[in-house]
């Protein structure tokens, strides 16, 4: 029986739990034992989905302490000999996974978007060159297969289990080095990954975000942005779409003033429908779109809003 370890990021518990799907895709529902490491103390529903739940006494081990958690993973691997170790590619997972891989002398693949097997060999797919290409990668050597996976890429639904508890002692791994001085929560906004409709603005829509917001509201969706806009301070990083932002899979994605030559395309691969509004109909994003509107983003949004609002008024008038 194969063994798969998934680490749970206490700031992304639900997303971490879903990584169980990676084990299922590689080894099949019955082919592996699943272990969830709840180093930070929180583990949500993991106790009902995993075979084993690993908790840390004398903890918690905070997610920002990558060196300590890497040592904990190493120690667990020495006991359980995992075949695969899957880490959520959160801010913290991106520091934890490389450190653990280095200690285990294991090949590590970042930002995996697909997995499968070819005989005994596990292959992983990841976007590279800002999402321009997809690389299929295999691990070599004797270590476990290691990967980090972006939240939102996989989702798992499987039989309910009752996880057996494993306890490790946090004191064994503590490494000094990083200390949290202060933490200010960002205002909790709805996550753009949860929205079925995204109205996304790029450099060409830099000054039109107020309008995009109105269109998002009219279509019961949310506003997103390209990296360019975020880097220029035009939108918060939380709504950035793309390889360095969020991977989204809405039903409808309207890209306004986004060329697609940015890391953007990697983040919208799973969108069901794509409308690209661009002054240049040869912009790279247009070759992926269902509908290309060549022209001005502002004119497009205003025109569409007029039609939606007119229809709404007419409906209300009819009822009254």
């Amino acid at each position, binding site marked *: 029986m194969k063994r798969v370890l998934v680490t749970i990021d206490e*700031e992304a518990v639900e997303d971490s739990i879903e990584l169980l799907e990676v084990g299922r895709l590689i080894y099949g529902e019955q082919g592996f034992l699943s272990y969830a490491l709840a180093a930070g103390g929180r583990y949500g529903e993991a106790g009902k989905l995993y075979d084993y739940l690993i908790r840390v006494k004398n903890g918690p081990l905070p997610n920002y302490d990558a060196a300590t958690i890497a040592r904990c993973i190493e120690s667990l691997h020495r006991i359980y000999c995992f075949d695969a170790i899957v880490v959520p590619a959160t801010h913290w997972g991106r520091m934890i996974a490389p450190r653990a891989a280095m200690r285990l002398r294991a090949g590590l693949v970042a930002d995996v978007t697909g997995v499968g097997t070819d005989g005994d060999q596990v292959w992983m797919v990841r976007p590279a060159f800002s999402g321009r290409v997809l690389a299929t990668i295999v691990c070599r050597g004797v270590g476990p297969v290691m990967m980090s996976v972006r939240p939102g890429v996989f989702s798992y639904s499987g039989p309910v289990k009752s996880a057996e508890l494993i306890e490790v002692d946090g004191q064994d791994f503590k490494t*000094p080095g990083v200390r949290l001085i202060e933490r200010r929560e960002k205002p909790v906004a709805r996550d753009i990954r949860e929205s079925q409709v995204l109205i996304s603005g790029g450099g060409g829509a830099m000054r039109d975000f107020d309008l995009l917001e109105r269109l998002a509201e009219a279509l019961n969706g949310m506003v997103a942005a390209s990296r360019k806009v975020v880097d220029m301070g035009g939108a918060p990083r939380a709504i950035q779409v793309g390889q360095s932002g969020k991977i989204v899979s809405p039903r409808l994605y309207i890209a306004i003033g986004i060329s697609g030559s940015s890391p953007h395309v990697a983040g919208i691969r799973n969108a069901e*429908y794509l409308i690209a509004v661009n002054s240049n109909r040869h912009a790279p994003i247009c070759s992926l779109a269902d509908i*290309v509107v060549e022209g001005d983003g502002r*004119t497009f949004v205003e025109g569409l809003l007029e039609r939606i609002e007119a229809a709404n008024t007419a409906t209300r008038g009819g009822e009254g």
Partner: protein
Amino acid sequence: MRILCLLKLVPDVDQLEYDRERNVLIRENVRLVLNPEDATAAATALGIKRDAPDSTIEAVSMAPRGAMPHLEDLVRRGFDHATLISDPRYAGSDTWATSRVLARTLETRDFDCVFCGTHTLDGGTGQVPAQVAEALGLPVMVGISTLVELDPRAGQAVVDVDGETALMRFSVALPAVLGFQYDPARKLPPIRYEDLNREVSGQITVLGNNELGMDESELGLKGSLTQVRRVGVDGREAKEPVLLRDDQEGLDKVYRWLDQKGFLER
């Protein structure tokens, strides 16, 4: 204060073209640029040097020989020294092999802090800073938006991190590896006119495996723990889109399409 900057030169991604017939990325003749987040790290180091001129700052880059002009530029912009790690035997190294070569180089240096970018534009794995830190047994913090304080005498750096759900301030024990987030406000300073053609070869060291002495079985493609099997075009297949304009007719069509697909239901 002694700061080492790990800097990567990457192909200018916006220039990359895809050859749809051959299904490959055209990498020939693509300009190399300093990775934007690494440029932020370098600019931060230069700022420290400007405020505390007795600091020494060194740029370290693993790259083909062709990267030399970029390193010369960095010295002309104010770096005290630049080290180019270049050896054909290193070509094709994955992050594991790369990090070990970088760590071996850093072991021979005295430093208070290592600066780098958090991600790179090309591979974009973001693994190297943490892997170098692990190989050297140092703390690491990435995604740094502001370096609040760097105090080797107190043995700590204070950094602000713009995380996914919170803004955080950390104290990191020195020496440490610090990865910066891109900050367009922190740009590399221009080269002063009198330095444009300054002779800098005395401030540049080139290291290969003859100097670093890594086991050859742990280098390059064959020494890597990950291997690229295939590279393909993005999974979303190119479509023949419906082409409209932003005029009345185009807007009417988009509106009707949205209605048909059920996006206008309240």
